[in-house]
């Protein structure tokens, strides 16, 4: 007999799929309620071991990927990946992508006229240590306009993708900066109800800041936790 422990469902801080202020959700959010399905081995497992052979190893410094230093404010971002019960998530991969200091992505569909930076791509990857800690170096991304509504600007943000321990714990999110007035009026950030929106706002930290090098920001990522009681995979049970 094998005991498997399921994962908790989303908490009060999860955004809805459909959000009035974020225009493109209107055609891309499901119209029918999600179907609550039983938890099986499929949901409680995930690619926890073989990812390095697939994705490659760590790329924790986004400022040294080209011949010279990128333009912009150099920053150090560090924190922990945990679950909602405070247990660290060791050896988990966090992928990172972002715009440059002027707010421009290297993507060809980004047609804003802010300049590209020949010394900056904006893609990185870190792996958490045994305590769930990570650290990477980058430049602070600029803010950029988008077509959602008149005079719409995204707050500066770093895109993050985490695998976590299972299919159920998969998370894609964005990290924001504490002194950014655009957060208050951004439809994507504000799809998350207050005060939970603030979970995505990093904190400036002088201890993480390094003298004559870069400003430090703290950001912990909290993944879905385990359910309290195990279920047994050879035992009939209602998981609804």
């Amino acid at each position, binding site marked *: 007999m094998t005991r498997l422990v399921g994962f908790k469902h989303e908490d009060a801080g999860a955004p809805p799929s459909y959000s009035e202020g974020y225009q493109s959700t209107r055609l891309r959010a499901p119209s029918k309620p999600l179907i609550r399905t039983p938890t099986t081995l499929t949901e409680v497992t995930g690619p926890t071991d073989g*990812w390095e*052979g697939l994705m490659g190893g760590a790329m924790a410094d986004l400022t040294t990927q080209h011949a010279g230093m990128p333009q912009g404010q150099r920053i150090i971002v560090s924190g922990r990946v945990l679950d909602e019960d405070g247990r660290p998530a060791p050896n988990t991969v966090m992928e990172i992508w972002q715009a440059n200091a002027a707010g421009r992505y290297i993507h060809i569909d980004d047609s804003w006229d802010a300049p590209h930076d020949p010394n900056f791509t904006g893609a990185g990857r870190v792996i958490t240590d045994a305590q769930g800690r990570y650290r990477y170096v980058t430049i602070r991304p600029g803010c950029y306009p988008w077509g959602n509504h008149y005079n719409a600007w995204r707050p500066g943000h770093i895109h993050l993708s985490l695998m976590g321990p299972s299919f159920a714990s998969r998370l894609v999110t964005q990290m924001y900066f504490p002194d950014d007035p655009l957060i208050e009026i951004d439809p994507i950030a504000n799809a998350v109800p207050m005060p939970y929106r603030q979970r995505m706002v990093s904190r400036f930290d002088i201890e993480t800041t390094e003298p004559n090098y870069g400003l430090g920001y703290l950001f912990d990522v909290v993944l879905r936790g385990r359910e309290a009681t195990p279920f047994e*995979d050879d035992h*009939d049970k209602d998981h609804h």
Partner: protein
Amino acid sequence: MVDNQSPEIFGQTPSQTVGPYFHYGLPWKGCADLVGVSEMGARTDLFPAENYKLNVSTAREAVIGDVIEIFGLVTDGAGTPVPDCLIEIWQADAAGIYNTTGDPRWAKSNHDGFPGYGRCATSAEGFYRFRTIMPGRVPSPDGGLQAAHIAISVFGRGMLKRLATRMYFDGGEGNDQDIVLNAVPAERRDTIIARRDEGDSWRMDIVLRGDNETAFFDI
């Protein structure tokens, strides 16, 4: 103002959209090929070559099982193809075992080169396409076996959180008894059952919104 470090709001980090520009950050060359070496899954046409910092597909041990292709068109609520989605899959190997130490049977099993996990950025025409193997049947909490299936995540611009679903196979052994498939209202089950297209190719379209909307799960 409270922030990420404030104990009073500690809890799950909220999901946000993957946005339209993930192509240079997430889908590496070969990420949609779980069998061999190729560039399937990546969209290197969307950014300059000098900005390609992701991994490249490398040879791995031979994969055991029946090689299949799975593919489908992703459309939105207006029926328009979606060219900027990211699809991810997670599935068991041919023996029905997941490639992770988190599967209690993993330690005692023989491992081939099958990763079990893949990604695919949709094409300019809105299609996803993976080369993989037909998954084996995985134990079910009811004591039997689940029907062969592949877990799917859908991410995209305009999607504030991952949409989770599964792919089953038309005529698959155990489809009738599968506890997850049976949790889906009967009239919607067809939306998550792939049909044989040509040869070993299986098609399941993904409809994000609308009358024939794909059955998405609260897992």
